[in-house]
């Protein structure tokens, strides 16, 4: 009796785990295990040619795969933006254009949670295309000066990063963490969080059928549409729900630590970043550093790890910029830019009304 009980128990436990693994592989919302049936290249091409942009669902498209395609077809632009979601709204296409005094035409290559590896790979791709941009504006986040802080880039452009390192003559001194990535890929198969995302994607597909690349209609940028939209310059306009929620829900007084766990910065990473910027300058590109503000609640929270990191990293960024003789725009501190507490979507994402003020805060 007990033997049979144990067999059934083991079978059902295995069944739950197998079901999670299967749904994660089949629906794979972040495109980690399978190549998306919709080509990122096709999406990038359609995006550039679109009139009002394309719908962008984060569980359907991998933003890194799209942005690397965009990077390879930068074309004639003044400024390329590289950074995290903090910089995704910077645009010359939308009515409230950003950095207008500096950039007539912007191309936005920002990706969510961008790390040092993303900065290097995307700028390498953008400057090795036929036409180089005049300026690359790097949105430097508090967590950027680390190597191997995350592995999302491994899934999208490991070869581009390797080639960039070769150019910087760093390939012998740095590993690409591929073993770490493979083990993270395996453990992610048994992650409930990823399974929930997979199930959501499955439900969406069941209700709406196979996803296609959909053009966005003409719309009010202040209101948004039912889903986020990537504009033809690569910048984002968030969904109407997200824009609304940011107006209704208060910003928590205590925010979660986001990518600022552990040490404030890594000297090897800082050195690599310095080499990377020098290499761009040598190519004739003008790098500019950009800092986007965090909500005043983060600055009021004396124990916030995000705040402590910003307090250490901002002077470091300014020192690095001085050494390299490049400009720094903005600040992590909203007071410096003049952003109000109600001009944030959450503790770390400013609204476009705050972001467009950055143009006047060159220090």
């Amino acid at each position, binding site marked *: *009796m*007990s*033997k*049979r*009980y*144990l*067999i*059934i*128990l*083991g*079978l*059902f*436990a*295995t*069944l*739950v*785990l197998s079901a*999670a693994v299967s749904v994660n592989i089949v629906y794979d919302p972040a495109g980690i295990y399978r190549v998306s049936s919709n080509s990122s290249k096709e999406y990038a091409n359609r995006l550039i040619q679109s009139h009002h942009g394309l719908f962008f669902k984060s569980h359907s498209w991998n933003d890194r795969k799209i942005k690397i395609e965009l990077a390879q077809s930068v074309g004639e632009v003044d400024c390329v933006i590289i950074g995290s979601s903090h910089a995704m709204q910077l645009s010359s296409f939308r009515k409230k254009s950003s950095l207008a005094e500096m950039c007539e035409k912007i191309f936005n290559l920002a990706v969510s949670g961008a790390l040092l590896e993303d900065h290097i790979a995307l700028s390498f791709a953008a400057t090795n295309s036929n036409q180089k941009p005049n300026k690359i504006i790097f949105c430097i986040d508090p967590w950027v000066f680390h190597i191997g802080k995350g592995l999302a880039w491994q899934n999208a452009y490991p070869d581009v990063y390797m080639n960039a390192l070769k150019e910087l003559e760093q390939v012998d001194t740095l590993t690409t963490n591929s073993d770490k990535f493979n083990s993270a890929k395996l*453990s992610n198969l*048994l*992650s*409930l*969080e990823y*399974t929930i995302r997979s199930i959501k994607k499955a439900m969406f597909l069941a209700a709406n059928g196979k996803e296609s690349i959909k053009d966005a209609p003409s719309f009010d940028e202040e209101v948004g549409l039912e889903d986020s939209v990537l504009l033809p310059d690569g910048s984002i306009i968030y969904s109407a729900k997200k824009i609304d*929620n940011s107006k*209704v*829900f*208060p*910003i*928590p*007084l*205590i925010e979660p630590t986001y990518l600022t766990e552990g040490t404030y910065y890594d000297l090897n990473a800082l050195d690599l970043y310095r080499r990377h910027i020098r290499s761009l300058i040598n190519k004739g590109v003008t790098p500019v550093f950009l800092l986007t503000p965090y909500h005043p609640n983060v600055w009021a*929270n*004396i*124990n*916030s790890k995000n705040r402590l990191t910003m307090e250490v990293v901002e002077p470091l960024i300014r020192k690095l910029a001085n050494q390299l003789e490049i400009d720094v725009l903005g600040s992590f501190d909203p007071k410096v830019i003049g952003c109000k507490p109600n001009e944030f979507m959450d503790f770390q994402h400013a609204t476009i009304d705050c972001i467009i003020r950055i143009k006047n805060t060159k220090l």
Partner: protein
Amino acid sequence: MIGKKGHHRIAISWLVGASLFFYGWWNPAYLGLILFSILFNYSIGVMLVKKVWSHEKSLLFIGISGNIVLLGYFKYANFFVDNLNLAIGLDFNLKTIILPLAISFFTFQQIAYLVDAYKGKTREYNFLHYCLFVTFFPQLIAGPIVHHKEMMPQFAKDWVYKLNYDHLAIGITIFAVGLFKKVVLADQFALYATPVFNGAASGEQSMFFEAWFGALAYSLQLYFDFSGYSDMAIGLSRMFNIRLPLNFNSPYKASNIIDFWRRWHITLSAFLREYLYIPLGGNRHGKFIRYRNIMATMLLGGLWHGAGWNFIIWGGLHGAYLVLNHSWRTLIGTSAVPLGKFAHIFMIFLTFIAVTAAWVFFRAENMDAAMSILSGMIGLNGISLPNQFYPFLSHMVRSDYIIFNGLAPLIGGGAGKVTICWLVGGLFVVWILPNVQQWLTHYSLALDSSRNERQISWLSWRPTKVWAVMAGLVLGFALLNLKKTSQFLYFQF
């Protein structure tokens, strides 16, 4: 497999080795400490049993002192020096001492062993069995605190070392439930408790609802964390055909604080009663001495949980609760009318609130943080209401006492409804649902299984297909949650 072939010594050695490996995985540096502690206590214990020295009391004193010095150095030295510096204005610096894992548990367990040896209650002194008694991995890290006399007879039995499918089925079922409680329930409640306590630590004034949300969420987090750990310890142990004593028996169903301490961390309560409260005189020398002994026992019980004033205050608060409870019993005497159903429910609720208020000190980073949350719970820091109420109530409110910044700004916008659902669900589980002992009532889950209050026949577990499917699903779901799991709270004690 080794045990099946009759190689018991090899089987025990293997289990001891595996347990030490498990302990050393955390920090191999402290393996030497636990091995030294085992050798020291075993030697003293054997000398006491064999009466090799006529001054047995002195030997016992040396043994207990050795343990207390070890615990005192690793756990309390920094606390003592910091307070001494503060009191007499010194600036004496002691290097930060890292607390070895489980030191409080294996020290108390061995003190009990020495006292039992002194009283002649220990018979067997096989060294390998003794090593397993101290290091047995299911209970090494966070209890239960086991007695020599409870474990040694089990280690001596032949059948313990043979695979038993019945025990394996029971063990894995209890383990699955424990894992579920920890990774699904306790870690979810941590999401609601942590921001409130962290906020209070950084000087934020907790408002009414969020203070209650934080305190209740922590009560439930600690409940499911410790209950889950206790189930896992019993389940793992049962897979090896060993029964552990019961350590957790629906404590939030207690209708008074005396009852609470018979249900929460049962083996620690028993240890404190047997080896501290009774030697201090117990209730044998009048009311005043009895209450003094209760207070001393609970203050030291609080200190056992951690080197900090918050733990001492938590212990003192429970001591005061117990004194009040005993005084009340003395006052009403035995002639009191038995409680009606509603009065009983009220008493459970009152006990729970008293315990929750005390947990605030237990969890808070410092006294200011604890006071901020308690002030919030009694409404001194104002009330924050959902933004949606603003159009209806704003004209009625003329002060800063009521603001419209969401129900629980520290937890985050929109978290109110979800938090309430989780809290209500958690309270339903702890107050209404039967516990694991009641669920497995036919299979004498722990060493002392006479504590079961009621049996629910339709819900009783049997090794049937239906229960196998349910347990398999629970185990699978719990394993899926492992990726985001935090440490057990009782690991730090």
